[in-house]
């Protein structure tokens, strides 16, 4: 299964991240995962929240340049070699990973993966019995 991620175009401007996150706070939306990367001119903020549809709609209403796209979230045990093994499954199937973010706590790791072919990536996860999470599961993790 795949889940929705919101990508936001961020101009490199002091305080812009605060402004965007405060939009979500005022709408009572909790951010579950977030990552910001930057180039010299702009950044992309990627977020997963407790209510993606509403978050997306509110951001658009505030004239934020944002897109919604699919990612797959996988839960694995947090032990040596797990990340490596999981990624290998995609490599063996010939799937390119465009970007990924992951974090570990309570002996579990969660990987959020974006591939250029999400349908195939999802198929690989199912075939290999990887523990993909739904949005609801991610929220209650």
């Amino acid at each position: 299964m795949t889940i929705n991620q919101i990508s936001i175009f961020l101009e490199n401007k002091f305080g812009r991240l605060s402004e965007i996150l405060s939009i979500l706070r005022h709408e009572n939306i909790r951010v579950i995962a977030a990552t910001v990367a930057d180039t010299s001119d702009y950044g992309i903020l990627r977020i997963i929240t407790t209510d993606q549809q509403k978050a997306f709609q509110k951001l658009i209403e505030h004239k934020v340049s944002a897109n919604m796209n699919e990612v797959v979230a996988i839960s694995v045990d947090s032990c040596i070699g797990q990340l490596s093994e999981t990624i290998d499954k995609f490599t063996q199937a010939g799937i390119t990973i465009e970007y990924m973010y992951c974090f570990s706590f309570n002996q579990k790791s969660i990987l959020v993966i974006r591939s250029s072919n999400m349908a195939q990536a999802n198929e690989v996860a199912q075939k290999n019995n990887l523990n993909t999470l739904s949005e609801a599961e991610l929220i209650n993790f």
Partner: protein
Amino acid sequence: MASTEYWNEELETMSRPNLEKLQIERLRKTVEIAQNSPYYSEVFKKYNITPESIKSLEDLQRFPFTTKEDLRSHYPFGLVSVPMEKVVRVHSSSGTTGNPTVVAHSQRDLDQWADQVARCMYMVGCRNTDVFQNTSGYGMFTGGLGYQYGAEKLGAVTVPAAAGNSKRQIKFIMDFGTTIIHAIPSYATRLAEVFYEMGIDPRKDTKLRIFCLGAEPHSEEQRQRIEQLFGIKAYNCFGMSEMNGPGVAFECKEQNGLHIWEDFVIPEILDPVTLQPVPEGEVGELVLTTINREAMPLFRYRTRDLTRFIPGDCPCGRTHRRLDRFKGRSDDMIIVKGVNIFPIQIERILMGFKELGMNYLITIDTVSNNDEMTVEVEVGEDITISDYTKLQNLTKEITRQLKDEILLTPRVKLVEKGSIPQSEGKAVRVKDFRKNH
């Protein structure tokens, strides 16, 4: 039936020889009137110009040029050619430095001007059954009253909404069933945004059908965007306060060049440096002589606007020559690293990208003794933000196309929607921070 196509068929379709005969006659008459102005009486003496000495259009070459500076240094009424009791209105340009330029009008001048504007509007399909809303500033700015009297002469219902307050504009458009709008292009874009923010689709929910776009040079791409946003036909209008205001030249339904009304002005296109005529069809500065104005005639007025005559006849049947879309103003031109650049060239490229919005800003600065040009452009609705490669490729492609057009490589910066300040007046497109500029 041909007569329904033209406001004044005889004048609009007059044969070239007859039109030239009319021009010579009117030029002679105008010289006669202008002899009464303090300014031109001296000029004419110096250059041996008399009404009788005008035999052909070539005689115009003997006249010296009139510039904005001449108007300023004879502020306010030094060029007025009729007794002041015949003057009924003055208009003035927005002079940011020194004296503004003033143009005085008699009642006859105003009537002729209204007729000229009515002719333009009629040409693009406006009729007395239309509801015309004018979003121009009224007052001294000619886009307000100029269109007002023209549209009244045409017999349309006029809505003198004036500038700004977009929600109120939209309320009028909805309540009065407005069919025709006059707006500057940057404001038309702004208005579309407000429409969509309010959840109204101007293509379906209004009766709008024609836009008259004026006062700012704009690209064909920007016109097409405005046409798509509103589901209307948009026509380019050229005017300037020194030449009355709107209505000097106007596109016909062919949307291929603006007919310049040669029974009102004699147009010349000259090399801005040598001031000699350019070969037919080449770009140069538009120089105009009024031949249907009494209170303040102007001879060989340097407009600083760059354009060219479109060679050949127009399928619409009008014999008045067509000016091409304006290339900018000779004084808007920016020189970066020795290259002459007009903002409109950059706009044309940016508008070709569907991923981009309509607002942009060109900044020029000195970086380690070199000119550096930065083009900031807002991203649009349709941009895909999910990955860097796409954004970077987009930036690269914009840079490449700009380089092909202006022959130097600007720094292209994508910025968020709404981050470039938008005015409800003329848009500021260039900021030059270089020393010595």
